[in-house]
């Protein structure tokens, strides 16, 4: 490229301040080193530690941490929770986006505020709200006990708390996307005689598919990794109501570092896979709004 530029012009460009000067190079490399140093200490070192500690006593010790029945139960519980929560939140996200992006109605901004709310409040508060509803001294506590239904310190509580924390992800991805893409194709399909469901599956869903995948993987990562909200409602019963993140806490507090970091390594891999899918989606040209 540089060969194409006349010599005089190149000379002139080089003499401009802030271009190819020594100080400009110094600032450039200084800032790059500063950024990488900051990220290295805060991000890469912890990530590397997860695997370093997990494999501290060799591969056999690593594998044997997954032989523990309580750890296995925790992995099953986390998978079960995600399997319930993610589809429900996906359905909610699609419904909310259709309702908010396709129609003009009163109270719309209130709905959007409610959808944003879980992202603004502490996960501990999200979990606590369900304890106040369904806990022993909560609103429905006595009634639930009379009817022998347990929500808090049981699976339903874990699912509810996880749902509350993770439901905004799909909706927040889809609402701006659908708003931007507009209704023209859908209106054309409907006026040409397509039914509502057919329009949704054949027109809308293909249009928003990348945004949907994006929202679903973020929702799933958060659902499997949620700690604060689940910690409040779970009751920490080993082998019964302990999810993977809660098991990490317990093993860590028992000084079983290999066990704690072995479980942590699985969740780290989940995060890496999530980011990988995210990058692949972005490579299709999909841009977050």
């Amino acid at each position, binding site marked *: 490229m540089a060969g194409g530029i006349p010599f005089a012009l190149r000379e002139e460009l080089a003499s*401009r301040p*802030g271009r190819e000067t020594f100080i400009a190079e110094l600032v450039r490399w200084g800032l*790059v080193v*500063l*950024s*990488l140093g900051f*990220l290295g200490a*805060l*991000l*890469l*070192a*912890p*990530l590397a530690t997860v695997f370093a500690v997990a494999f501290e006593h060799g591969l056999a010790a690593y594998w044997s941490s997954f032989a523990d029945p309580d750890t296995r139960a925790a992995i099953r519980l986390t998978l079960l929770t995600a399997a319930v929560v993610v589809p429900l939140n996906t359905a909610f996200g699609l*419904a*909310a986006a*259709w*309702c908010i992006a*396709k*129609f*003009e*109605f009163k*109270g719309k901004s209130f*709905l959007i505020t*409610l959808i*944003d*709310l879980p992202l*603004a*409040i*502490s*996960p*501990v*508060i999200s979990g*606590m*709200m*369900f304890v*106040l*509803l369904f806990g022993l*001294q909560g609103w429905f506590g006595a009634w639930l006990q009379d009817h022998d239904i347990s929500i808090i310190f049981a699976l339903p509580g874990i699912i509810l708390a996880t749902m*509350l924390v993770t439901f905004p992800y799909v909706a927040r991805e889809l609402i701006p996307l659908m708003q931007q893409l507009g*209704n023209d194709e859908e209106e054309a399909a*409907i*006026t040409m005689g397509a039914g*509502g469901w057919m329009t949704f599956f054949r027109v809308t869903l293909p249009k928003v598919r990348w945004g949907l995948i994006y929202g679903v993987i973020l929702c799933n990562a958060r659902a499997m*990794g949620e*700690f*604060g909200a689940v*910690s*409040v409602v779970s009751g920490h019963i080993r082998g019964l109501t302990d999810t*993977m*993140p*809660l098991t*990490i*806490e317990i093993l860590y507090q028992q000084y079983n570092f290999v066990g704690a*970091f072995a479980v*942590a390594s699985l*969740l780290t891999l*989940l*995060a890496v896979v999530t980011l990988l899918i*995210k*990058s692949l989606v972005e490579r299709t040209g999909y841009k977050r709004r």
Partner: protein
Amino acid sequence: MARGNVARPLTAIRQPSVLPGFGLTFGFTTFFLSALVLLPLAALVFMAASMSWSEFLHVVSSGRAIGSYRLSFGASLLAACINLVFGFVIAWTLVRYRFPGRKLVDALIDMPFALPTAVSGIALTTVFAQNGWIGQYLSVLGIRVAYTWIGVTVALTLIGMPFMVRTLQPAIAEVQRDLEEAAETLGAGRLYVFRRIVLPTVLPAMLTGFTLAFARAVGEYGSVIFIAGNIPKKTEITPLLIVIHLQEFDYRGAAALGFVMLVMSFIVLLTINLIHSWGRRRLVATAH
């Protein structure tokens, strides 16, 4: 528009449209939000409201509570300030410079979003403990990070970092380079260009990123409790104090503290909206 004249039950709240499915999706959305957000929120507010004023004050202004606010809000503010500087440097580096591994670094920025907080909590504690990879060098300098307020700040900085970087990246990309170059050819110094051209353009984004990082940090629980030490009045964050109240089955005390945090969240949300409208007004003003 003729359809709008036909009496239909839903036209009272919405404008007419040829698209179907409003009733179904609106019903599902409002039911879902009522059951999952409004009802639990009402439980929290009513539980806090059922306390007498003096009882409420006693809980939310106890020495332990005040100490926890100081740590939660102080460390969050400090972490957001650190992110203001480093978030800008990272965003600037990623937007303006080309270096090997830039794409990978860019993808890694989202790691704290995707990584479960319990994992980053135990990993940071291990790295910054006195015998950890980084902690051992800091302890030679006499700095203890793990189990002190510094550790809390480190964890909150990590949690807030992506918010700052992701908000700043598009803003930095929008800075007009020809303006910078024009200023430079007219003899403006590097810092002058930064102060008069770059900073005004990215200021709204910086403030938004700051508020988002701060808001996320105040409520953070998982990554903090491992590194905090959790000594009452010293290294105990407000969310942990709420959990302790709940574990003692003191629902009303927990609700009172939760209410205080909720009010803070609303103030933060309001601030973000104000910054947004201010930024838009400024943009319109400069366009004319």
